[in-house]
């Protein structure tokens, strides 16, 4: 087992950094009600990766062959963000329907690209479902570096970005003055790069699961406060990525990313059950104390 850990040490680092980076990004995107748009952008990134691999096939093994698909993914995701933003501009209703249309369109485009380059069939499955175990050391190092950068940006700009997410959620647009909009572009760029990189190296399923599962599941925990939610999401995502990966190493027929997703779900169920049990015991304790020491009930006449 130790030799496996040594072999996959960079993969483990990449998973442990990418998981919380995506989870914290997902908290902001979910608050902005951009989950469906993010699915489109992820799908756009996937088409970019496939097109990049297809067109740059002859450069495989060179730096262009390694970085080119990522560049295509960033470009296609950027186009998808701009196009979807324009498509829903000024519309409060039927946004999700329009995003679903874009998603279906990009799904078709991805399928067409993979049909045009028969060698892409294995890449298609890789980009969809991902497999951390197949990451090269270079892929893992790039993923770790970008994830660390993403975590740093999200930590430094946490208050400003959260403020913007809050304004977008309740007012529908940003209302604070330009001086208070620090980090708007940094957040957009890091979202774009992290999404594209994650889809290319870790797969669409891993990306979407890490973005939206932790924040959705942890929103059922009655923790009060933003900080607690951030910490819970980050911890659950790291634990699931590590446990899921180790399980898939142990059981060779267990695919990595589905294992991570299932572990995350089970971990969340355990946390939620534990919290419910704790609250039940606390309430029962309070009730028994009030039975032993009843307080007089007072009532006043109305006017």
């Amino acid at each position, binding site marked *: 087992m130790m030799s496996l850990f040594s072999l996959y040490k960079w993969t483990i680092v990449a998973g442990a950094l990418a998981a919380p980076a995506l989870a914290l990004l997902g908290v902001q995107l979910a608050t902005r009600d951009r989950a469906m748009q993010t699915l489109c952008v992820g799908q756009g990134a996937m088409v970019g990766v496939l097109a990049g691999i297809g067109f740059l096939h002859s450069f495989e093994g060179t730096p262009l062959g390694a970085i080119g698909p990522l560049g295509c993914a960033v470009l296609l995701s950027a186009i998808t963000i701009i196009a979807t933003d324009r498509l829903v501009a000024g519309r409060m209703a039927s946004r999700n329907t329009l995003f679903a249309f874009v998603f279906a369109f990009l799904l078709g485009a991805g399928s067409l690209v993979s049909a045009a380059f028969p060698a892409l069939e294995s890449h298609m499955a890789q980009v969809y479902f991902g497999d951390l175990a197949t990451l090269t050391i270079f892929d893992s190092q790039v993923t770790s570096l970008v994830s660390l950068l993403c975590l740093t940006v999200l930590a430094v700009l946490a208050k400003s970005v959260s403020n913007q997410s*809050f304004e977008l959620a309740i007012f529908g647009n940003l209302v604070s003055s330009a001086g208070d909009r620090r980090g708007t572009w940094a957040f957009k760029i890091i979202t774009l790069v992290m999404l594209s990189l994650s889809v290319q190296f870790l797969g669409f399923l891993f990306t979407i699961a890490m973005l939206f599962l932790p924040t959705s599941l942890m929103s059922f925990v009655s923790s009060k*406060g933003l900080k607690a939610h951030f910490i819970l999401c980050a911890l659950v995502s790291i634990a699931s990525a590590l446990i899921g990966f180790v399980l898939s190493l142990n059981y060779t027929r267990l695919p990595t990313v589905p294992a991570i997703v299932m572990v995350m779900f089970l971990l969340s169920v355990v946390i939620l059950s534990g919290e419910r049990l704790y609250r039940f015991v606390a309430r029962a304790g309070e009730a028994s104390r009030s039975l032993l020491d009843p307080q007089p009930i007072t009532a006043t006449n109305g006017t």
Partner: protein
Amino acid sequence: MNDVVYDLQSLSYATPTGRPLQTGLTLTLRANQLLLIRGSNGCGKSTLLKILLGQFPVMKGSVRRYIPPERTEYMPQLENTEVHFPLTLRDVLDFSHGRRITWDDIAPFELLREDQLDTAWNTASGGERKRTLLTRALLKNPRLLVFDEPMNHLDGESRQAMIRFMARFLKPSESKGERAAVMVCHQGLPEDEERQFDMLCLDLDSMTSGRGTA
């Protein structure tokens, strides 16, 4: 003319889709005054606010604002009342101000109680949310407050707290500098509330403007 906050001359404006709303609007808002904009649905109250904030273009005429945008706080109508974040009211104040807010920072506004700060945003009452948003705006020490329907869904106590606060905000004071407020209020204000302000009332249905009740 030193105390002028807004100067509107023969202003004509339309919706973003080009439907004309109002023409020939002229008024001057001075320091320590409240501009109350009222009128029926669709008469262009919110659009006028956005023009005053410089977010929408004018068709004809001119709008001059003498308080800089960075000293202006805008509180639009709420599109959604709940957010995905498990926020507390304290979080809302903290992240909008960029640092941990203490009770001493917000006590002078007399809008929230200390025990309300740990209330979750999603379970807070409409009044608590509006008071939090107002406190959030005030922490930035604005000179111009612009509100779109701030009195909607407020109970009597919250409404009185808002009116008391607005009257205090607009009270002339050398130390605070010149201040003003613009408020869209669908039905206007009752007479006892109006009396607390030096108010300029703009009725978009009849296109009249004047001091006090139009």
